[in-house]
């Protein structure tokens, strides 16, 4: 079965392989800063992969998944505030809290469809955002400064320990997703996306599958958020600002939403552009180097207008034979 997964999800495995070797590259060229960038890529990529279960495979446009990242981060932050440093427990708390919240929000939000669903998920995310802004005890708007969590046997202050903790979590999440998407559950979820009525006519309850997908994606975002807190050594409501939910959606669409590896490709491109565009502009138009978004914005529009299926789709179609392209 592992061999089967290896064959089926080549791009994902290649990316994971490169990510595993990346610290060697940064050590050789003495670029420790880039380890930091890549950790952020992996964390946001992980959250986007989680969101993609509902977004890409389930066809539910959730505009509020940054909230689950925030909940995960605050679970770590608040646990530490009360003196519980154990990272594994914090991860567990994050997952359970996000799972329960995902169940409640999913149950309420999935009564609506279309634009109303987009908006109700945004509403719940905004509620949680303002809830944490209101919590003066945990820093309110200013956030909560924290130490890296204590993952027993893994001292996160040792160089690269955090990198590989995030990396192996990402590998774990990837494998879970690969198995999930090919399982009965994954197939039904994708069937619901293409025609919910037919799934119902087959005697299945679509809502049950949609809520399950929603909960799983919330839990994955929570895991990402919990590690994000350790990476940032700081938690603030900013992590769950609605623009981050937007970023996660952009990452997915940029990469290609029908692919398990899509969000990861999207995260790499999105965050690399964020890092490199200012430098690039600095060379070409020094006066607007700070305003890199003026290039990035139209780039997004161009991806939508001309690149169907995101980067994975564009590149994938080039690589596959014309005959194979037909039935896509």
């Amino acid at each position: 079965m592992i061999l089967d997964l290896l064959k089926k999800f080549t791009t994902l495995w290649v990316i994971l392989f490169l990510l595993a070797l990346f610290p060697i590259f940064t050590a050789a060229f003495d670029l420790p800063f880039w380890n930091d960038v890549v950790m952020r890529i992996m964390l946001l990529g992980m959250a986007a992969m989680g969101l993609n279960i509902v977004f890409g495979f389930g066809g539910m446009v959730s505009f509020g998944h940054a909230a689950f990242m925030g909940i995960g981060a605050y679970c770590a932050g608040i646990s530490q505030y009360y003196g519980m440093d154990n990272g594994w427990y914090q991860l567990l708390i994050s997952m359970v809290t996000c799972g329960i919240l995902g169940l409640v929000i999913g149950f309420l939000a999935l009564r609506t469809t279309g634009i109303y669903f987009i908006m109700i998920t945004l509403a719940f995310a905004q509620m949680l955002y303002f809830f944490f802004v209101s919590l003066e005890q945990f820093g309110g708007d200013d956030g909560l400064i924290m130490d890296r969590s204590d993952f027993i046997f893994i001292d996160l202050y040792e160089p690269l320990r955090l990198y590989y903790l995030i990396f192996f979590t990402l590998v774990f999440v990837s494998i879970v997703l690969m198995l999930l998407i090919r399982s009965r559950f994954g197939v039904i979820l994708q069937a619901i996306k293409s025609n919910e009525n037919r799934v119902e006519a087959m005697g299945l309850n679509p809502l049950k599958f949609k809520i399950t997908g929603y909960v799983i994606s919330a839990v994955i975002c929570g895991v990402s958020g919990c590690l994000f807190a350790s990476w940032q050594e700081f938690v603030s409501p900013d992590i769950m600002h609605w623009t981050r939910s937007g970023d996660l959606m952009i990452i997915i669409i940029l990469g290609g939403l029908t692919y398990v590896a899509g969000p990861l490709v999207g995260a790499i491109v999105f965050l690399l552009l964020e890092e490199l565009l200012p430098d690039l502009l600095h060379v070409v138009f020094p006066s607007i180097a700070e305003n890199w978004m003026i290039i990035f914005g139209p780039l997004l529009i161009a991806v939508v207008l001309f690149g169907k299926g995101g980067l994975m789709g564009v590149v994938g179609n080039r690589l596959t034979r014309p005959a194979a392209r037909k039935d896509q």
Partner: protein
Amino acid sequence: MTATLLLEQVFNGLQAGITLFLIAAGLTLILGIMDFVFLAHGSQVMIGAYAASAVTIATNNFYLGILAAIPITFFCGYLLEWLIIRHLYRRDHMDQVLATFGLILFFNEVIRITFGPAALFSNFPPSLAGFIEILPDTPYPVFRILIILVGLVCAVAIHLFVSRTRVGAMVRAGASNPEMTAALGINIKILFRFIFAAGATFAGLAGMMIGPLTSVEPGMGEPLLILSLVVIIIGGIGSVRGAFIAAIIIGLVDTIGRVMLPMLFRTFMSGPTADTAGPALASMSVYILMAVVLVFKPTGLFPPKGA
């Protein structure tokens, strides 16, 4: 807590609500008729505010600023629809979200490059800077009264236009069934472009009017966009009447909550904690309201007939 303060807050709430309505009126039609998720509507507010402020500062005349900004925002909306938006109607919501998110980034940076990152300050003329006594011993700024009046005039005008004119009938028909409307021989493309530009103008007008009250800065439209989306959802997508009622409700809840909740909390909390928690929970109350409405009426309070 005095009755005077409460009255003042009710008026502030009305003013906020009216402003929201001006933004939401166009957006609800864009969402309802074109089924288009247009996130860059907040940028139209910003464009309006900047156009008015820039002209006001250059000519030192507030009225000239408004006069110049109205055609500018209309033209911006028209051009935007023609260049980009019309290619996106047939795409799914995700693509629309992504593309219009890109537009937000683009507009913010254009403004930042042209006018700099700092806020732009333009004063309204001295003739509008005074106070009116709305009740004996209750002074209220003339400028805010003016905003309420202009907003009400716009609301009445939009209502009469939509409910009494031939083009308005096309708009209503488009809101409940676009395909059927097109099949009846109505040029839906021109209709879309016109609605889009008109919506942009009203959003721009809201920006022009609140410009002197708040800071005119890049990204100023986004919080307003999110709130007006809430308004549209509560009111029912495509319903101008629903948008009006919901906008007033949201304006009042948000404004009064911001004042009352900290007071309420101070009765059982320490001062600073209440001052932080109050406004945040007031902002939260808006979204709670929306979630409650959606859970019980999944298509909003006043969904257009046939939708």
